[in-house]
């Protein structure tokens, strides 16, 4: 499977009568983009605004974050707007240096804070991107699940609409991704250690799970997925951003998958990716861990696996079960995890489960450490916060887990929680 990702860098976004890419400037006809999104009768408004790195601007009520992209042939985000087709091959154009942030009043969503300047900008890579904010309002009477789905589709449409500007352009960079589990290291050095990746995705019910090819993943059982499918939009967030979790952008630009690809043929042979959900029942956690350990050992012939998680709490027993079952089969494991250190950052009980086999852990961040965000002049995405009874412009003390991108469950930033 071969995927080419073409890069079209953007360093400025501006209003225009015609939506087009002019060098590194993205020109946007907001009216036209809005009209496209409002073809969906489940939405009664779609306000489009721009936020720029360094600007005194706070984006709230965040649902998801995308990058704009379009496939040369076929559907991007396969299975969301039309029938699902296998993703991961061909050519996909991506606008780099920018993101699309969808926002809206979805019940049950947590507050999220993305400031384009100040401490937040140091914590979150998203603050360094030119940003198109799409604020959605559901039609009266639309239920939570309906609005969540409409928001996903709006994000996908917005991504495609802006991605379309690259259709006839020339990319500035191009990356090719090719990996084939069954033929060893693609003809490269077979003496390299074979490293696989176990990829659990968030799956906790209505508007609370990831979509795989457009469908809910709460009943997903472990299966093999090609890394290119992930990088090409097979995995999309189904609802609201829980800011400490991965948004769609994180799956499209997956830290672990990119790292394994970069090392592929140099220091490792990238053996493959196993995708799973975080099942609700403990018995399923054990079963899934056994299935995945068997995939890793017997099918992918992996010497080692990196394991991530996509949730807190109940994801921890998954990590520990996967670790134990893999290690029992001789497959070495390294786990990536965020943690919730106790009062005052106390080390005790950072995770809710522990295995003595889990001796190699990368600590990507303490979610409950607080950071003070200063006053911002401009608010986008909504008019009020959900859990804070104050003007959204005012200074606010928040935990790291309220800032999308501050903690990267896929290890895509330089944060680490360490002992003091």
């Amino acid at each position, binding site marked *: 499977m071969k995927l080419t990702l073409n890069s079209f860098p953007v360093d400025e976004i501006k209003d225009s009568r015609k939506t087009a890419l002019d060098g590194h400037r993205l020109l946007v006809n907001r009216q036209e983009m809005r009209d496209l999104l409002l073809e969906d009768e489940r939405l009664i408004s779609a306000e489009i605004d721009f936020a720029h790195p360094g600007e005194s601007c706070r984006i709230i009520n965040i649902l998801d974050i995308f990058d704009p992209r379009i496939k040369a042939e076929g559907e991007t985000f396969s299975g969301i707007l039309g029938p699902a087709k296998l993703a991961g091959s061909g050519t996909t154009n991506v606008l780099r240096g920018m993101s699309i942030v969808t926002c809206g009043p979805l019940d049950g969503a947590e507050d999220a804070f993305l400031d384009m300047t100040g401490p937040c900008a140091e914590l979150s890579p998203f603050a360094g991107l030119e940003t198109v904010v799409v604020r959605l309002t559901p039609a009266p009477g639309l239920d939570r699940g309906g609005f969540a789905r409409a928001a996903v589709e709006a994000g996908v449409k917005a991504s495609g609409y802006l991605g379309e500007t690259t259709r006839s352009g020339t990319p500035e960079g191009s990356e090719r991704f090719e990996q084939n589990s069954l033929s060893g290291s693609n003809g490269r050095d077979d003496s390299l250690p074979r490293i696989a990746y176990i990829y659990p995705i968030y799956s*906790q019910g*209505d508007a609370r799970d990831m979509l795989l090819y457009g469908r809910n993943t709460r009943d997903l059982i472990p299966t093999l997925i090609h890394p290119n499918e992930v990088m090409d939009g097979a995995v999309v967030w189904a609802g609201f951003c829980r800011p400490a979790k991965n948004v769609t952008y994180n799956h499209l630009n997956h830290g672990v998958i990119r790292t394994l690809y970069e090392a592929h043929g140099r220091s490792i042979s990238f053996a493959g990716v196993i995708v799973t959900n975080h099942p609700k029942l403990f018995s399923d956690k054990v079963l899934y861990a056994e299935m995945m350990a068997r995939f890793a050992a017997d099918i992918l012939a992996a010497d080692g*696996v990196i394991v991530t998680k996509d949730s807190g709490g109940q994801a921890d027993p998954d990590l520990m079960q996967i670790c134990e079952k893999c290690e029992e089969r001789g497959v070495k494991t*390294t786990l990536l995890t965020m943690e919730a250190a106790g009062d005052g950052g106390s080390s005790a*009980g950072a995770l809710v489960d522990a295995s003595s086999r889990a001796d190699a852990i990368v600590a990507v961040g303490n979610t409950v450490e607080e950071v003070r965000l200063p006053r911002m002049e401009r608010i986008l995405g909504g008019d009020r916060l959900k859990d804070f009874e104050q003007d959204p412009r005012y200074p606010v003390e928040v935990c790291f887990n309220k800032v999308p991108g501050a903690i990267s469950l896929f290890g895509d930033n*330089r944060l680490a929680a360490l002992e003091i």
Partner: protein
Amino acid sequence: MAAPYRVVHYLNPFFFGLGGEEKASIEPTAKAGPFGPGRPLQEALGGEAEIVKTVTCGDNFFAERAEEASDRLLDLIEESRPHLLLAGPAFDAGRYGLACGHLCRKAGATLNIPAITALAPGNPGIEHSKDVYILSTSNSVRGMNPALQDMARLGLKLMRGEPLHSAREEGYLPRGFRKNFRVEKRGADRALDMLLAKVRGRAFETELILPKFDGVPPAPPVKDLESAKIALVTTEGLVPKGNPDRMDSTRADRYAKYRIEDLDALDASAFEFHHGGFSTADVNNDPHRAVPLDVLREMEREGRIGKLFGDIYSFAGCSTYYETAAGMGREIARELKGRGVNAVLILSS
């Protein structure tokens, strides 16, 4: 011109230069200026800080009368209004190390100044590592110079109020807390490096050492259910409609008790669930899906169980700290035991 920062240094009589074992019982005393290892320590501090006083106390005196010794030493220290207390290094000397740790801890607590000591990893004084910056030394005085350099470097940082990096980076023993830092490599790269080291059988260091959780042995079965008094405890976040007690939906740090004595059922108009970890739509429509009070009352009437306890205990079991949950559990168990409850039905989500 006086140096901007004042430092007091603690040494035992041997290092102070007063003599060996025969001086192990001398009382707390002080002299102006640096002595013994204090002189190279002063050099390491440079012109930015001055060791204005050296205090000492016999190791035996301290070991036998630790509170008195430290109080008297603290009086001597406080007179100099120092910005920092340095103690040792004590290497593997046990009594000396304990004195250094104890004195530093009390200086931090009562004088509110930073305090640093330096001990070998096996020194019993490291029991104070939660409250004191303890730098690691070699076992013997051969490691004197690097230890003094480390003490000076960390001491200056603390006096200047500079932010510290992790314990590992700064060289002190972890105090049992976690903090976020920006490090050189991305998490995914750190993961691959760690995994490759592990696969190749090379040394690697985890970034998180997991605690060992207590196992809870199950209580013996209830002998006679027909006469048992049974309590309900739920971690599903059951609250009266509107959540009047403002119970947290995640990271609960307290539980609530709600009266169910006079209720035959949980009415959806009177109760709801406030929980951040699962979709509460189904249990809000019918609370009995989570807390089957209706069926339990039936069993009570039929005599299949003795009696339901009059209150239900409730909180949202969602990312609550382990130690907090253990504390709540102990409290609830104590209370129920005191009220003659024989069994608990724990209703979890």
